[in-house]
């Protein structure tokens, strides 16, 4: 019994406090999105809601451009995921299967790219896209997001492809398959769990991205993160609308992350743990 009590006080109670810190801000956002304005504008704010309503969610989707913004974000995130995987898979396959001169240098270069300050990349990209007339297009955002996430996607996929025996590609090629066919029809299906995890990572990263989207988007293409931030600027802050938007944006990212978590976290932290 003292053992049980010790575990309760020494472990479970502090874990509960840390979890509360991790989760309550999220819960508070969601809760704020379903309370009427009369409660949200009453200072000091009551901790417990007295009345629940979906008015903010309905107003957000009916009266503002938010539905359109959600669609733009979805298009960009899906595009960036497809393009990112299409670029990363062959590269990962090459890193895994071929030993060539400069291989290590290239892998290091992909690592270093990841560490350049974002400002260093986005300022000239803005000037470039502006000169090319590509501002405010899906293409600019998709290309940018796919490339920013490329180093990590390649790094993670390479470790998945490494786990698939080379003998399988060789057997397929003896049976008359080309390299490309071996990669697409033998390695790819086996690496599917890894591909899905990397795909989810690419999707979340693009869906969540703000700075590049802020610079690249205008009247035609505006993602949800940029749109939400713009709502703040409009005369008086409408917290109910903002929290409703925040909940709608955070929900898919959170669910996808929890879904892919075990595979992703292994990859996201693998580099640190190995080092």
């Amino acid at each position: 019994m003292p053992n049980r009590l010790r575990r309760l006080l020494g472990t479970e109670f502090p874990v509960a406090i840390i979890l509360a810190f991790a989760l309550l801000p999220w819960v508070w956002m969601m809760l704020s999105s379903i309370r009427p304005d009369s409660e949200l504008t009453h200072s000091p704010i009551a901790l417990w809601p007295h009345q629940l309503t979906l008015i903010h969610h309905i107003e957000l989707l009916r009266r503002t451009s938010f539905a359109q913004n959600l669609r733009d974000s979805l298009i960009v995130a899906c595009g960036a995921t497809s393009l990112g995987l299409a670029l990363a898979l062959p590269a990962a396959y090459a890193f895994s299967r071929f030993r060539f001169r400069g291989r290590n240098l290239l892998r290091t270069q992909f690592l270093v790219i990841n560490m350049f300050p974002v400002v260093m990349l986005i300022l000239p990209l803005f000037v470039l896209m502006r000169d090319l007339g590509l501002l405010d297009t899906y293409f600019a955002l998709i290309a940018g997001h796919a490339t920013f996430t490329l180093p990590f996607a390649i790094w993670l996929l390479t470790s998945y492809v490494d786990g698939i025996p080379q003998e399988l590609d060789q057997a397929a090629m003896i049976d008359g398959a080309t390299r490309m066919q071996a990669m697409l029809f033998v390695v790819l299906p086996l690496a599917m769990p890894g591909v899905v995890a990397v795909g989810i990572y690419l999707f979340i990263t693009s869906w969540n991205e703000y700075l590049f989207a802020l610079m690249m988007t205008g009247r035609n293409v505006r993602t949800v993160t940029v749109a939400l931030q713009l709502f703040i600027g409009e005369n008086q802050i409408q917290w109910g609308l903002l929290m409703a938007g925040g909940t709608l944006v955070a929900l898919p990212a959170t669910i996808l992350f929890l879904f892919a978590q075990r595979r992703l976290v292994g990859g996201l932290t693998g580099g640190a743990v190995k080092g």
Partner: protein
Amino acid sequence: MLAPALAAAAVLVLLPVLDTLWLSLHDVILYRPRLRPFVGLSNYMHALSDPVFWESLGNSLLWVIGAVSLQFALGFAAALLLNRSFAWRGVARALVVVPWALPSVIIGLIWTWMLDFNLGVLNNIGVQLGILSHSVPWLAQPSTAMAGVILAVMWQGFPFFAVTLLAGLQAIPGELYEAAAIDGAGAWGKFRHITLPGLAGVIATALLLRMIWVANSLDLILVMTGGGPGTATQTLPLHAFLTAWSGGNYGHGSALAVLLTLLLLGVVVTYVWRSRRE
């Protein structure tokens, strides 16, 4: 097979880096695209003689040290706790990562809302518990704005340390602890002589990675305070971004970006050197 990825990286990453260097040596005002005269190092001279640069550098140091040390402390505590066994450990390990999944914009919104002077729930709780004597306009006054944004970034980043260090803890063989227990080591002795040395490599890599990330990140501050009030929360990358984006001065902004990169180079080189050594 590498070619497409290399080409994409070259066009969208290496080219911009070189481009930034080029921009930083020219006088580039956005609404004057035809005229971009070469000005040598004058953008750099201008940046270094500007007191705002030094102020931003100081803010950056405060931001990186404050954010990384708090994230690390809380993440380390969480990892040690989550490594012990209790009934709902699996659920706890899964849920602790939730802040990590959210976009910076949403995190900024949530914390701005919770730290609000009139309607913020944290002020309300603080006053009710007697921790605060009155509501504090956290993000609206220079003396507390940095604390406010650091609190938000701590929330965003501690799961990274929790998960990374937890993976490191699980890699330490259990026999070491059993042997130490037989030799009569107490809890502190085990922590000091087994956990810390076993985790040192992971800690160093995680700290380096996070320092680079926090030093580069600017979206959370941009959303919460825009660098203000005044320049109270303006870090170096934010200064570079605002100079170019709001000020329209891309030459000057690029020079600031290059300076930031040079300052970070030491950390990046250490990280790459460590990761290539194995």
